[in-house]
């Protein structure tokens, strides 16, 4: 794919993201929905670092999303009402869990890898579900809100203003996605792609597959934790469903639908998923069928995802 084309796509994506609160109402949305797109997009892109670039299918990434969410929520609820600290705590918890779980499963491949990620995810789901005195159980954790952000003399009212929170989330999204783009451009990132393309060959070249896979898993979990923390702050609420396997499945759907071979594909997938869910579910209770239909059409006709479509026309 040409550099020029990459640049044009990037420019378009950022322009769309920066103006999203303004055009979202025109397609039946609202600012909170725009924030949701950005947060879910970050989650799907974080998963894609592992899925699309390293070639390892994790069906349990909601674990890190949920841990990030609970980490952030419980920090504010029990420790200190500070938004930055909450996010840091969420990220730290998700990264730690990613490091521990990753170390245990990097030797598994294919379906065994995927099954292990589901199993670990369900452990955390049931802990959150049953430990109701701390996590609020099935009722979720309420009684807290994100705190306004103080930047020295300035205070950014991300609690009262949905628009302010959108740009706050977008800034963190930019930081996360920027870090991901940088990582992918380094030799480490190229090695991940090499592992995806031909693991045995990479191993014969003397690369430590397990260590690379582990690092990729940890980075992906860390970014997932950031997305989860933002999600909790967006809703001012967190419940065990953020940890469950169906949430993991939704991230996989977003990534595959948008195009897991392209950098921005998962964001497009998240956009479609979130907006279609929101709009269609107001009209019919069977909104999942619509998503399912779109997903099947994409898998059948554009196996490289919706954004893969663009890439195919590029000069080879």
């Amino acid at each position, binding site marked *: 794919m040409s550099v020029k084309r990459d640049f044009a796509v990037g420019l378009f994506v950022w322009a769309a993201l920066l103006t999203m609160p303004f055009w979202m*109402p025109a*397609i*039946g*949305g*609202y*600012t*909170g*929905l725009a924030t*949701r797109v950005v947060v879910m997009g970050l989650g799907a892109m974080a998963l894609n670092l592992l899925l699309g670039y390293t070639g390892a299918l994790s069906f349990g990434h909601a674990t890190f999303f949920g841990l990030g969410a609970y980490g952030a929520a419980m920090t504010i609820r029990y420790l200190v009402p500070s938004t930055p600290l909450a996010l840091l705590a969420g990220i730290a918890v998700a990264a730690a869990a990613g490091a521990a779980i990753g170390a245990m499963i990097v030797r598994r491949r294919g379906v065994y890898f995927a099954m292990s990620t589901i199993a670990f995810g369900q452990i955390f789901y049931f802990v959150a579900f049953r430990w*109701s005195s701390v996590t609020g*159980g*099935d*009722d*979720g954790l*309420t*009684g807290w*809100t994100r705190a306004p952000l103080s930047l020295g003399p300035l205070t950014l009212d991300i*609690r009262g203003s*949905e628009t302010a929170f959108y740009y706050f989330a977008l800034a963190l999204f930019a930081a996360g996605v920027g870090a991901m783009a940088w990582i992918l451009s380094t030799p480490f990132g190229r090695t991940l792609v090499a592992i995806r393309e031909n693991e045995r060959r990479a191993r014969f070249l003397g690369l430590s597959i397990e260590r690379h896979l582990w690092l990729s898993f940890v980075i992906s979990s860390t970014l997932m934790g950031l997305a989860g923390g933002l999600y909790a702050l967006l*809703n*001012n*609420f967190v*419940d065990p*469903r*953020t940890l469950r396997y169906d949430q993991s499945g939704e991230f996989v759907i977003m990534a595959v639908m948008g195009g897991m071979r392209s950098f921005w594909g998962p964001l497009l997938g998240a956009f479609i998923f979130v907006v*279609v869910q*929101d*709009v*269609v*579910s*107001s*009209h019919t*209770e069977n909104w999942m069928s*619509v998503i399912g239909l*779109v997903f099947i*059409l994409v898998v059948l*006709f*554009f196996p490289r995802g919706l954004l893969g*479509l663009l890439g195919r026309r590029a000069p080879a």
Partner: protein
Amino acid sequence: MTDIKLPPLRRRDLIAGGLALGAAQVAGPFVRTARAADTVKIGLDNPVTGTYAAPGKNELDGVKYAIELINAQGGILGRQVELIAEDSTSGDAGTAVQKANKLIDRDKVNFLLGNVNSALAAAMAGVSSQKGVLHVVPGGHADAITGANCHWNVFRVCNTTQMEANAVAKTLATKYGKKWYYITPDYLFGHALQAGMQNANKALGGETLGADLTPLGTTDFSANLIKAQAANPDVLVLLVQGDDMINCLKQAVQFGLDKKLHIAGSQQEMEALEGIPPEARIGTWVMEWYWNQPGVPHVADFVAAIKKRTGRVPTARHWFGFVSAWTCYFGAEGAKSLEAVKMAKALQGFKLPPEVALMPDGAFYRAGQNQLIGDLYVGTAQGQGSAPDDFFKVSSVEKGVDLAGTVEQSGCKMTWPT
């Protein structure tokens, strides 16, 4: 030999088709916003799918009927009322929160109603109180909503679990004995119900012989029933709900337990009794509203109107929805404004008029807690009463004021925005 050629399915056509479909999906909201500028909007965020679909739909019917009446008499503050209903799902609090945000931010509703599931109601209350929108909870029972987690803007129509437990406990303890055994659904609402019953029984000097927690969706209760029988309690307290209640009651009757000990529980609903065969409609329960109230003014009109709309008698859920929508009306008319704080102030201690209260002793929103306090109906389920849909025989009408405790006991410390 020639190949058979099918007309090619071109990618371009598919994309065009997809775009057309997409456009059709988003076309709806445009229409709604266009005509909605001059109406007062009530947003209902309640389940219409899943376990609580039946009560959710009944509440929706009650809300619709009330809005029809309100619009027929000129609307709220002279403006017609528009209902915007969203499916919250039965158990996904994240979706309920998202829909609450959607109703408030995009649709700019003046009132938020919901939810059947108390967990979802509590989560929605977090949104509504942060955004300062008047919120009426029709049928979520967890005590905290008007207790420890109360908010100035959140009003509740149905009773607390503790009130229901208190209503039935005295009857059970004096009539049947104080040694109780529990079969309880294993989630927060079930735990709260059991704690409420245990508190009430303890206050009367009773004891707990045992308690079985059963997972939601249990179909075979035989092990629990045998265990309960062996413990030989005076009363077997069934706190399971919905389909679990139907299965548990059926099996208890098949085992002949109803001949050996008394079967009872706190909350019972018409939706469940309608699903139980006549011979298993037994036991002592609490209803929060019942349609067969001879001599209470306006009740017959309400029953006839709902029956005409849905073909069935109204349940407590219809009444919850009905009262919730009228609460919006009384708040706005009392405050002569749609400002949430003014409306919430106007509703403090507000007594519902008899044509809305539909209870012998009336009902009012207790100041400082925003909890509606009316009557509770204690009685027994019956196979067949005087009328085709008469599945419950009311033995006593308990006054809510005697059961609710004080505002201090509820744990509600209300703070108002400055």
